[in-house]
Every structure is written in structure tokens, then in C-alpha cells.
């Protein structure tokens, strides 16, 4: 930021870099999966890049799911970094505690509402592309969280 750009620009540029990296790594995973399929598991029936249900469809779906998954991990990690930069260790611990509380709270509510069966049905009915959509929505939510956090980050 010594070079005169805003937090907004910095965040947008970093996200763009993350998206590009996810796209390239997704292509690499897709290519390796294609080679793996063409060689019947490297000639040994060993499949590293075929993940049952998740990465087991056509090449474009493999790429899309890989891209979205890698993007999700990138923005989640970036949000952790931003929280640390803004609120230091205490803030990071509080952030992790809040996430754990959120998960536990969700689990408790699901238990009290006897909703676990419905949740199970939702995921078993969900296709790989549908799950990719859920992950993409989560990535967008995390992106928004990161954008809100960086607004007051000091350098």
C-alpha cells in the first residue's frame, strides 16, 4: 500500500490472483485425471485423481469442482490472514471460537429440531454439480467476510 492503492484494490487483485491460480491448478488436476483414465490408473488400476461422487464426472465438471474447491480454500485462508492482521492473535482466537460456536450451534439446532434426517437426504440427493454450487455460495459468503474485514486493516 506504500505504492498508493486502496485496500479495495489490493483485495480485488489478491482475489483475482487466487481465482487464476485455482483455475490453473484445476486444469492440472483435470489433466492428470484424464491421463489417469486413459492409462487405466497409470497401468496399475490406481486412481489418485478420481474422487468418488465429487470428482468422478466429465472433465469440465472435474475442473469446475476443483476450481470452486480451491477458491473456497484460498478465500477462507485469506480471511484468517486478514482477521490476524486486523485483530492479532486474540482476534484470531475469537474468530476460530466463533466459527466453532457457529458449527456447534448449528448441530445443536439440527438435533433439537430433529433435522439430521432431512440434512442427510439433502446431501444424498445433491449431485456433484449441486454440491459445487453450494461450495461456490459459501466461497462468495467468505469473500464478503474478507472484504468487510479488510476495510479497517492497518498496515
Amino acid at each position, binding site marked *: 500500500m506504500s*505504492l498508493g492503492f*486502496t485496500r479495495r484494490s489490493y483485495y480485488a487483485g489478491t482475489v483475482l490472483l487466487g481465482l487464476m491460480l485455482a483455475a490453473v491448478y484445476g486444469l492440472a488436476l483435470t489433466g492428470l485425471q484424464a491421463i489417469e483414465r486413459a492409462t487405466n490408473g497409470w497401468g496399475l488400476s490406481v486412481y489418485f485423481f478420481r474422487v468418488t461422487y465429487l470428482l468422478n464426472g466429465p472433465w469440465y465438471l472435474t475442473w469446475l469442482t476443483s476450481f470452486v474447491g480451491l477458491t473456497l480454500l484460498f478465500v477462507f485462508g485469506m480471511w484468517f490472514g486478514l482477521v490476524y492482521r486486523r485483530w492479532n492473535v486474540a482476534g484470531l482466537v475469537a474468530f476460530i471460537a466463533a466459527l466453532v460456536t457457529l458449527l456447534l450451534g448449528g448441530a445443536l439446532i439440527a438435533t433439537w429440531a430433529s433435522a439430521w434426517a432431512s440434512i442427510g437426504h439433502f446431501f444424498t440427493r445433491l449431485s456433484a454439480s449441486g454440491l459445487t454450487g453450494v461450495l461456490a455460495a459459501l466461497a462468495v459468503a467468505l469473500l464478503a467476510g474478507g472484504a468487510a474485514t479488510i476495510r479497517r486493516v492497518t498496515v
Partner: protein
Amino acid sequence: MTPTISVTGLSRHYHHHTALDGITLDIEGPCITGLLGRNGAGKTTLMRIVAAQEFPSAGQVRVLGGNPAESEEVLRKMIFIREDQEFPDIKVRQVLQVASWFYPNWSRDLAETLRADFDLPDSRPVKKLSRGMRAALGIVMGLAARAEVTLFDEPYAGLDAVARQIFYDRLLADYVEHPRTVVLSTHLIDEVADCRSG
């Protein structure tokens, strides 16, 4: 006339420590302004707030008539070189190349002249530079950018006396040719006084 930098009632508190307390000042450029004070006087905090790298607890900052916080228009006309300036892990010439992308008035010739003056090896990675060389690299960026507002926060930490004199000489020579608003914080009062009389 609108001051280049205008600070009104600026305060910054960190928990129980007050770094700035009701600072008000106007700097009307073009000029070179010295910010003198002892260690811990709040010079760095003031400059960080002016450069929108820090936020005030109270008060207002205007640079070139606008609020610098998240203002692309203002920030693009300002460069801030810190004492603890951090660089990405790339080579000297790449740092200067990247810096040149952000400043329309960037002078490649001046950057090259300064790099030679400070004996900065352009193919050396920044992480292998000495502390003084990193300080020199910051100075090269700060001067070659020819930004309308140039903030130097004790930029010569680690530089020897000869290199510091080169900095003063080049700063004054370039300022005469390209007047702009330069704010220079330091606690080396004698040297700055010599610079003024020179």
C-alpha cells in the same frame, strides 16, 4: 488555497497509550517539510494516518483536498516510504519496475541514477540486501516516483553519512526541477538543519 495536507484535531489512542493528541496542521505545497521529534513522538503514526495506512481515533485528514482513506484518486498521487519499508521477495530491478507501474510521473532515468549513486546491484534479491541498501531502495522509489505528495519516514535508517548526504543532495536537486510536497520525518535535527541552510 487548499492545503496539500490538512490535519485537524487528529488523535490516536492505543489502549492506554496516546500516540497523537489533537494535532492540527496545514502543509501548503510545493515545499519540503521536516517533521522533527524524538523517538516515540508520534511522527510515524501521523504519517501512517496521512497515508491512510492507519486510522485516527478522532480528527480529520485531507490530502489534496480529499480524504485519503480508500481514495484511489488521492492515494495514486502519494507515496509513503517507511523506515521499516517491506518489499516483496524479488530483485531490485523488479521492485523498481513494479513501482514504476503505479506512478505516471515515474522517472526511469532518475531511478537509474540513484541506483548507481547508492551502489544498488539491480540483479540482487531484496532479501539479500543489507539494511542500508534496503533503505536506499526505498529512497530510490520515493524520489523516482515524483508523486505529488511524498512522505519519507526516517528513510535513511541504516545509511552511512555519505549515503545520507547523497539523499539530501538528490532530494534538493530533484525538488528544484520538479517541485512537489515532500514530508520528511527525522530525529537527526543537525543534518536537516544543514540541509536547510545549504
